[in-house]
C-alpha cells in the first residue's frame, strides 16, 4: 500500500513501530533530501536511527538534533516528528531552512532512547531511563542525560542505580549515548547540538557541571534571548534561558556540556512547555502548538550557526 506523510496524525502520540515506519515514509517522500542512517543499537538491540537532511556535498558542517533521551517525555518525540516533517516540507519554500540546507546537513535522532520509549508504551508510562541492567542492583536503567563524559559522576546526578538520575557505571556506558558520541566525533564537523527535553520552558546552554561561564557565554546568551523571544511571539509562552548551572542547578554528565567540551560551540538544550497542569503528560492536543512555537526558536539557532561559521 502506498504510504504518505499526509495520512500520519502529527497531533497524536505514536508507538516506536509507528514512528520508525514513519521515518521510512518521510524518506520515501523526500528521497533527494532525507535519508535514514543507523548509528548503533540500543541495549535491547533496537536500531538507533538518525534522519539525515542533506542537499549534497561531502562532510558538510552539520547540526545535530535529538529528542526523547528521557523516554517518558512523549511531547519531545512528538515535537521531533513534527519538526522533521517541517524541515522536509519547508526546504525550497522557507528561505531560512533552504539557506541552511543548501550549506549544511541536519542530523535528527527522534527516538534517542528507544528501549525506554517502548517500555513507556508497554509496561510503565512513567519510565525515564534506559533499560540496561545494573550489576549488583535490582534497579534497571541509567539516566542517559547524566552519562556523558563532562563532569561525570558529580552533582545533580546519583550513584544509586535506583535513582532517576543514576549516572551509570562509567561515562558512555549506555550504548545510546556511546552511539551519539562516536557519531559526532567521527563526523568531526558538527557545529551545533540541540537536545530537546520537556518540561519547564527553558532554553539552556553550558555549563551545567561547573559554575564558571562558558567562554562563549555572551554569544550563547544573546542567541538564547532571541530564540525565546521569537518562541514567545507565537502563543505567548514564556521561557527562561541561561546556563544550566545558573538557571536550574548543577547537573553533571549532560549532553550539551559534553558537546561543548568537544568543540561544538552552539550547544543548547530545550525544555518544552509546561502548562502547569500536566507536567510532561501533555495531552496530545498540545503537540502541534508546542512544536509550532518551538520551530522559530530552532530556526534562530540553526540560522545563527549558518551565519557564524567557525
Amino acid at each position, binding site marked *: 500500500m502506498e504510504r504518505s506523510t499526509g495520512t500520519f496524525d502529527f497531533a*497524536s502520540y505514536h508507538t516506536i513501530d509507528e514512528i520508525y515506519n514513519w521515518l521510512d515514509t518521510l524518506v520515501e517522500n523526500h528521497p533527494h533530501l532525507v535519508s535514514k542512517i543507523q548509528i548503533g543499537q540500543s541495549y535491547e538491540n533496537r536500531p538507533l536511527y538518525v534522519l539525515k537532511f542533506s542537499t549534497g556535498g561531502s562532510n558538510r558542517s552539520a547540526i545535530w538534533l535529538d529528542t526523547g533521551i528521557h523516554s517518558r517525555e512523549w511531547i519531545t518525540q512528538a515535537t521531533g516528528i513534527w519538526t522533521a516533517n517541517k524541515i522536509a516540507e519547508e526546504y525550497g519554500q522557507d528561505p531560512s531552512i533552504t539557506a541552511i540546507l543548501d550549506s549544511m546537513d541536519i542530523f535528527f535522532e527522534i527516538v534517542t532512547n528507544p528501549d525506554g520509549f517502548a517500555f513507556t508504551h508497554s509496561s510503565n508510562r512513567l519510565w525515564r531511563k534506559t533499560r540496561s541492567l545494573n550489576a549488583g542492583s535490582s534497579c534497571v536503567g541509567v539516566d542517559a542525560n547524566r552519562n556523558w563524559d563532562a563532569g561525570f559522576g558529580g552533582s545533580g546526578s546519583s550513584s544509586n542505580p535506583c535513582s532517576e538520575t543514576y549516572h551509570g557505571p562509567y561515562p558512555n556506558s549506555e550504548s545510546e549515548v556511546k552511539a551519539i558520541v562516536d557519531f559526532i566525533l567521527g563526523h568531526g564537523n558538527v557545529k551545533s547540538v540541540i537536545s530537546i527535553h520537556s518540561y519547564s520552558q527553558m532554553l539552556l546552554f553550558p555549563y551545567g557541571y561547573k559554575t564558571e561561564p562558558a567562554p562563549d557565554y555572551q554569544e550563547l546568551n544573546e542567541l538564547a534571548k532571541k530564540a525565546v523571544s521569537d518562541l514567545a511571539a507565537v502563543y505567548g509562552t514564556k521561557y527562561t534561558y541561561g546556563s544550566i548551572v545558573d538557571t536550574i542547578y548543577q547537573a553533571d554528565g549532560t549532553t550539551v556540556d559534553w558537546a561543548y567540551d568537544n568543540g561544538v560551540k552552539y550547544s543548547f538544550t530545550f525544555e518544552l512547555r509546561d502548562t502547569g497542569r500536566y507536567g510532561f503528560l501533555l495531552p496530545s492536543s498540545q503537540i502541534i502548538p508546542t512544536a509550532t512555537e518551538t520551530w522559530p526558536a530552532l530556526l534562530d539557532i540553526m540560522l545563527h550557526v549558518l551565519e557564524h561559521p567557525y
Partner: protein
Amino acid sequence: EELFVGHQVLRVTADNEEHIALLQGLAEQAELQVDFWRHPTSPGNPADLRVPFSSLQAVKIFLESNGIPYSIMIQDVQELLDEEKKTMLKSRR
C-alpha cells in the same frame, strides 16, 4: 503494566533555601518513592513531585509541618494516563 492509581503530582513552591534543603532531603527518603518530575532549584520556582498513594499522607504532613506551600497538580495520575490511552486509540481508529 504498572498502574498509578491514586498517585498525585504535587506542585511545591519553596519559599527559601531551607525549604529547598528539606525537599532535597525528601528525595533521599527512598521508602517514600517520591519521583521528582521537576527538582527544586531556587526559592519561588516550582518543584513537581509524583507521590504514590501509599506515601501521600506522609508527604503532605511533611510539607505542611514545615510550612512548605503546595498544590495538587494532578489529582490521579492513572486517570490522566487512561485518558491519554483512549485518545491514542481514537486517533488510530
